């Protein structure tokens, strides 16, 4: 809304004025330099002067031809000067109708715009004047002349009377330099010129409106995008907060679950050791099952706790000199019972020389255990799991010296399309509820976080039905040599999971 003073007084969204409603002027619509060139061509061709004024009376172009000396001579007489000034004022600023000294054109040529009219000069010369209109608006005026009408026989009294000493013969001589033509001919030339101006104005109007609208449309699109961005940012912040709450919830719950589980395991152990009195074989077997399942549950809870702490950015690696082969051997003992139970052969290959690196001993052990446990889990009975450690050498992936630990199995393998996702937390290659292999999908995610925390990397090679090989490449010395906080790992996204 706009008040009387033109100020916006709208409450809420004010109605916006469109660029399409804006008035344009002749100067905005015409390219003046090319328009001037066009005029020049006209003047040279027809030898008639042309003047163009905009609606405010400002001169846009002025070409004279032939009349200079004649007009200067007339102007040199005071009365001539007065009459000349009056004529020029009438032509330039007077009303755009055949009034006040102007008259309609001679003859009724249908090709000539009716808005054109003639202004006779007191010298006998003549001007033709025509308004430039666009959509009913006056944009300016075109003036052709002065020219000598072909019917001018002798100099009129209004000229010869302007002063004593007026030399008619001299004036006649100067007049001869001015283009003599019938009024109808000049009118036709002017009508043609008017068509050209209209063409230019039409093109100018079109260009002006489209470019203005294009700008407005772009701004509008931009505004929409900014709004969308704002919405997305808000949503993103909300999701991040929810994610943080989830991690914090997982950490709390896992911690609370562990305490009673430890008691369950403690009491089961005491029962199986006969501390509460003798138990028979069947009872012993039951208690052992309770212990086994509790152990599995504890591992799962520990994994969830680990990953939630990693995701919350709460895990720190503490580096110390470590005998890598020793860590691997110790890891093997944790999976040995499981492997033995299923008849899986565990094979170890380490260099004879001691391999020493800087690492977080406990996290490295857990990394290797997770890889081994996975290998054992996904390998059928009487299969084979091989773990190998290399010598220290330059590692191209790290652009540093380091060693490689690979865990190879003869298991089910992982289809190619899953390779990119298996390191995301809670990702399962087989996510059906009836799947054969248990687990929460956290082991590899933890591996990746720990390995990357060491400045290393992990990769997988696998063929369905033949087996898999996981390789971790670790630098001899991590880039941050004392301790480091682990960055949260990538999440499995639901939409990439499903189809």
């Amino acid at each position, binding site marked *: 809304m706009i008040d*009387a003073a*033109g100020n916006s007084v709208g409450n*809420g969204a004010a109605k*916006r004025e469109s660029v*399409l409603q804006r008035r344009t002027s002749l100067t905005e619509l015409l390219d003046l330099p090319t328009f001037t060139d066009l005029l020049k061509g006209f003047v040279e061709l027809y030898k008639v002067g042309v003047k163009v004024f905009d609606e405010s009376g400002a001169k846009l172009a002025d070409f004279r031809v032939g009349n200079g000396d004649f007009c200067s001579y007339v102007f040199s007489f005071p009365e001539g000067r007065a009459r000349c000034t009056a004529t020029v004022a009438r032509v330039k600023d007077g009303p755009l109708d055949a009034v006040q000294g102007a008259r309609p054109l001679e003859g009724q040529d249908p090709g000539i715009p009716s808005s054109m009219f003639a202004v006779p000069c007191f010298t006998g010369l003549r001007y033709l004047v025509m308004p430039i209109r666009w959509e009913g608006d006056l944009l300016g005026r075109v003036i052709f002349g002065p020219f000598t009408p072909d019917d001018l026989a002798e100099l009129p009294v209004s000229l010869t009377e302007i002063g004593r000493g007026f030399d008619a013969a001299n004036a006649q001589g100067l007049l001869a330099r001015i283009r003599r033509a019938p009024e109808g001919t000049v009118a036709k030339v002017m009508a043609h010129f008017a068509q050209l101006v209209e063409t230019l104005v039409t093109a100018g109007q079109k260009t002006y409106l489209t470019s203005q609208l294009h700008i407005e449309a772009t701004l509008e699109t931009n505004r929409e995008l900014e709004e969308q961005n704002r919405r997305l940012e808000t949503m993103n912040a909300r999701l991040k907060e929810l994610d943080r709450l989830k991690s914090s919830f997982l950490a709390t719950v896992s911690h609370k679950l562990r305490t009673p589980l430890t008691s369950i395991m403690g009491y089961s152990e005491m029962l199986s050791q006969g501390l509460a009195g003798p138990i028979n074989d069947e009872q012993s077997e039951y208690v052992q099952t309770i212990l086994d399942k509790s152990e599995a549950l504890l591992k799962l809870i520990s994994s969830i706790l680990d990953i939630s702490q990693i995701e919350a950015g709460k895990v720190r690696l503490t580096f110390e000199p470590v005998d890598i082969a020793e860590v691997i051997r110790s890891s093997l003992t944790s999976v040995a019972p499981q492997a033995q139970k299923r008849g899986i052969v565990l094979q170890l290959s380490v260099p004879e020389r001691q391999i020493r690196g800087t690492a977080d001993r406990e996290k490295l052990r857990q990394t290797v255990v997770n890889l081994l446990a996975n290998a054992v889990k996904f390998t059928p009975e009487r299969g084979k799991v091989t773990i190998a450690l290399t010598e220290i050498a330059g590692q191209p992936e790290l652009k540093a010296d380091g060693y490689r630990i690979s865990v190879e199995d003869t298991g089910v393998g992982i289809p190619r399309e899953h390779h990119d996702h298996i390191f995301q937390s809670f990702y399962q290659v087989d996510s059906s509820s009836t799947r054969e292999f248990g687990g929460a999908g956290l082991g590899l995610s933890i591996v990746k976080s720990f390995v990357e925390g060491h400045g290393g990397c992990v990769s997988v090679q696998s063929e369905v039905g033949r087996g898999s090989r996981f390789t971790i490449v670790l630098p001899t010395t991590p880039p941050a040599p004392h301790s480091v906080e682990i960055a949260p790992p990538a999440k499995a996204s639901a939409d990439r999971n499903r189809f």
Partner: protein
Amino acid sequence: MKIELAPAGSDDSLAGSQAHLQLSQAQRELTVKVVYYGPGLSGKTTNLQMIHKKLQPEVRGRLLTVETRDDRTLFFDLLPVFFSTAGGYRVKVKLFTVPGQIIHNATRRVVLQGADAVAFIADSQRSATEDNNTYWKDLHEDMLENGLDPQEIPVVIQFNKRDLPDTKGEAEIEETRRRGKEPVISAVAIRGEGVLETLFAVLQLAYRQLDARSQLSKHIGLDERTFLTQIFSHVDLVGTNLQQEMSLDSPGMFNRSVGERK
């Protein structure tokens, strides 16, 4: 709408009105903006082309179109219609179309800015019903985005392409008419049928809206009858149902509302 008033003292009630007015002592001018809105290929440009053809050059300017290579409207079409009142006011009616293609959403909104009335060109084919509904909703959203009150800005609905097979029946069109206050006009724009009737209806409603808001008759001495006659006396009305009424010079015509006309 833009009204520019000459005398400084005559703005007594205008400043306080709900209208969006610009007051200037320099120019005596009333600009009315009518936007042809609707789905792609429903015939908005065809409507303007027909109006351009039927209007005498004294009251209309050139039809300005900006098209893509495949003859689809890129930005808008513009047909100016103008006349001067006896009191010396210049009245300019600017007819715009919006580009119908979905991608030009932002352009549609920009073109709609400051509209005083809308002609909604719907495609009568049954297959276009969903598009019609989508663009109808878009129109209301775009109005709100532009600070226009959909309750306030008059809209006329044109059911175009009545000659094509598998179009909505008269009963269905009647149903559409019953569902809202907007006048509904059947048309075959390509043959010029219903085009002038739509223009008449939308201009009549535009005038009434502006008059209610800004008392045009009081402030610039322009009544509805003069407003419409100044334009439609320069229109080739042959074959329209406006012809009879205009030639009879029936005074009743201008007093009845468009919805009542048959």
